């Protein structure tokens, strides 16, 4: 037994900010003090507050140290671990109180959260199956195999109201139910870990922090639909997740929790990993399956649906990582427990990746139906630098924007759909007054143009034409006619594309057109970008009152656009030559960076 545990986050966010060095430093310092029998150092998955990484939590008192560097470690060991005195200067700012520190669970970021899918992330060592078993892991699989029939399992999932967390929100139990009666010599259970939306990383965190939960849930799904083989399709860009999954599969096989005759019940189930190779479209279910088959990851028309004819032409189900992470808990705690959270049609919790113009970036898990205001203002800590909240973009390239007037909307599938937005996989990008909505729409369209697989014409050519029109708008060369064409094209692409990638690609445009049409019109008619983002519509100017005529900007100008003003005025009694920027300007901003007097501004 150890008297204290030091948890160091080993998720991708904290690893990038140097948590592995911090972990090494702890091990060294603890050894140097002779504490290695009393204090254990554990590398965990993601805690969610990536902004504050590297994150270190010291138990039993759950002291939350933020932005810890290797050089701080000795102090924590000598003060906290040896003498029991908390190193207050390193404690997460919000957890500091006048008379000490509060626990992590009481901070704004965590107090409103309910962790189901993320319950083990940042708590256990994901590379040790015993820690997962110690928190009740594989109990659900045992219960299912020894006490329940497959139909009962499906009924529990149906009753819980769990819906797909990958974006579409299809009821998970129904998916299983549709697959179960289809007879075949082989059936497959697939897991979608091809998380590709820019700004979404909840699946990565689950795979990195709690890989066994996904394996256990897939085995349960296998039992429910009558399959003995699972595939996890995960992005090759997630090396830590891949590594931990490999370890987890190996350990589960050694413990007899995967393989033949699990728990002596005669049930066989095994799981293999398949790595993606960098294609966004492979997140679409039929494309993912063709990719596992070892082909170009192109989608195919449905029906037949995968439940009838999926992977290798056999009945298959595909669920998202986060969906699976909920399942063992639902089996153990019951459908009523899960259904007691959330709203009428959207049950349970959802993980969101909060990013953009927000103080606390990171992963948050909240009950469905939580008002957007709570997420932004309480959990996220509001908009930094006193800027005004403008909109939230959800669902990445398939989603839309929630403008400020809807900040009190409860976040669930139906409410977001009612304003043309989607929950999606859970990316939530917060935008303030400095973001241009036309530019955002263009950004997502550039992404879909790059990632369109090219199989169907509507998506391949349609998205490209849409991007051309958007570029015309941001360059200030468009007419109101173009706007009409853009809207027509949106509907055409939406209605005629083969798969969800194309069908949803116009969403970012449609949604910004719905709520921010005035910004489009400002670009087209007034040739102005209200947020000051679109380069072609900005001009750089020199304030004659501040310019001292030193010509530093002129020397740095790549286009020789800065010249002495012939009509220079008299300033402080002396005639100074101030400068002007001419038409040659390429708007690179180098002059503004060079000027020491703040005389250059853009408008």
């Amino acid at each position: 037994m150890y008297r204290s545990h030091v948890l160091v986050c080993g998720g991708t966010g904290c690893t990038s900010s140097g948590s592995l060095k911090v972990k090494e430093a702890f091990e060294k310092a603890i050894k140097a003090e002779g504490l290695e029998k009393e204090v254990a150092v554990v590398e965990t998955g993601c805690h969610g507050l990536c902004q504050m990484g590297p994150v270190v939590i010291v138990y039993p008192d759950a002291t939350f140290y933020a932005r810890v560097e290797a050089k701080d470690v000795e102090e924590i060991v000598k003060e906290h671990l040896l003498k029991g005195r908390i190193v207050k200067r390193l404690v997460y700012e919000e957890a500091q109180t006048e008379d000490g520190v509060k626990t992590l669970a009481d901070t704004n970021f965590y107090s409103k959260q309910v962790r189901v899918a993320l319950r083990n992330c940042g708590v256990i060592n994901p590379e040790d199956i015993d820690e997962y078993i110690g928190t009740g892991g594989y109990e659900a699989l045992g219960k299912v195999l020894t006490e329940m029939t497959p139909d009962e399992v499906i009924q529990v999932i149906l009753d819980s109201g769990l819906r797909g967390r990958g974006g579409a929100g299809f009821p998970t139990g129904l998916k299983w139910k549709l697959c179960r009666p289809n007879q075949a010599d082989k059936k497959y259970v697939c897991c979608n870990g091809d998380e590709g939306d820019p700004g979404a990383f909840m699946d990565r965190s689950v795979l990195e922090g709690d890989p066994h939960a996904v394996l256990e849930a897939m085995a349960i799904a296998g039992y429910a639909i009558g399959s003995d083989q699972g595939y996890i399709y995960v992005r090759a860009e997630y090396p830590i997740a891949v590594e931990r999954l490999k370890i987890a599969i190996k350990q589960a096989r050694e413990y007899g929790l995967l393989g033949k005759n699990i728990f002596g019940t005669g049930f066989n189930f095994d799981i293999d990993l398949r790595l993606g190779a960098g294609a966004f479209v492979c997140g679409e279910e039929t494309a993912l399956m063709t990719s596992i088959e070892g082909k170009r990851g192109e989608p195919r028309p449905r029906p037949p649906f995968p439940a009838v004819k999926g992977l290798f032409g056999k009945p298959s189900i595909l669920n998202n990582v986060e969906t699976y992470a909920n399942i063992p808990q639902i089996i153990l705690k019951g459908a009523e427990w899960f259904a007691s959270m959330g709203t009428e049609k959207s049950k349970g919790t959802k993980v969101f990746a909060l990013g953009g113009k927000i103080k606390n970036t990171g992963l948050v898990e909240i009950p469905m139906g939580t008002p957007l205001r709570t997420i932004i203002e309480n959990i996220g800590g509001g908009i930094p630098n006193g800027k005004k909240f403008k909109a939230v973009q959800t669902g990445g390239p398939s989603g839309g924007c929630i403008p400020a007037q809807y900040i009190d909307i409860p976040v669930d599938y139906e409410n977001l759909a009612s304003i043309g937005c989607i929950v999606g996989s859970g990316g939530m990008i917060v935008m303030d007054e400095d973001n241009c909505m036309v530019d955002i729409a263009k950004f997502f369209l550039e992404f879909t143009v790059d990632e369109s697989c090219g199989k169907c014409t509507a998506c391949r050519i349609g998205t490209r034409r849409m991007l051309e029109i958007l570029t015309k708008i941001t360059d200030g060369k468009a007419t109101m006619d173009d706007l009409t064409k853009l809207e027509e094209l949106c509907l055409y692409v939406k209605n005629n594309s083969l798969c969800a990638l194309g069908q949803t690609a116009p969403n970012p445009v449609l949604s910004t057109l719905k709520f921010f049409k005035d910004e489009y019109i400002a670009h087209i008619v007034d040739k102005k970008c209200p947020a000051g983002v679109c380069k072609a519509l900005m001009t750089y100017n020199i304030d004659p009152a501040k310019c001292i005529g030193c010509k530093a900007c002129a020397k740095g100008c790549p286009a020789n656009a800065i010249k002495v003003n012939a009509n220079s005025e008299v300033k402080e009694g002396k005639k100074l030559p101030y400068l002007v920027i001419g038409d040659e300007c390429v708007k690179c901003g180098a002059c503004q960076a060079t000027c020491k007097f703040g005389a250059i501004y853009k408008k």
Partner: protein
Amino acid sequence: MACKTCSVPFKGTPEQEKELKAAIALMKDEPGSLMPIIQKAQEIYGYLPIEVQTMISDETGVPIERIYGISTFYAQFTLEPKGQYQISVCLGTACYVKGSNLVLEKIEEILGIKPGQCTPDGKFSLDSCRCVGACGLAPVMMINGEVYGRLTVDQVPVILAKY
């Protein structure tokens, strides 16, 4: 086919070939193993020249056009090797008007390769990139992440000679 124009002669070793063949023999009977095999091949050789694709085709019996189709579909696979030193020249607006195209031309002339290619000895690969955000230093190029700014054509041979 794009790989026909590959600028670097194929220099696979018998050891690499043995490793790939052993890996293929191990995997080929598994369903859907073509992707993992191609991933393994890229791990061994660093890229997928026509020779390697042919090898995979011969060993698995899968037609080469299917292997080529997969290799060109996914962003992770590359048909051209990357050099030991990866040069990228900024062709963003600010750099371009300051003559980064001339810098690029000079590099092409010295190394004898075009953007997207790699020198036959595998030392340098050349790419152009969009703005790197160092317009104040224009024109700019990067070699393995190190930034060289305020470049003139005369400096190019001096800098390349350092590597």
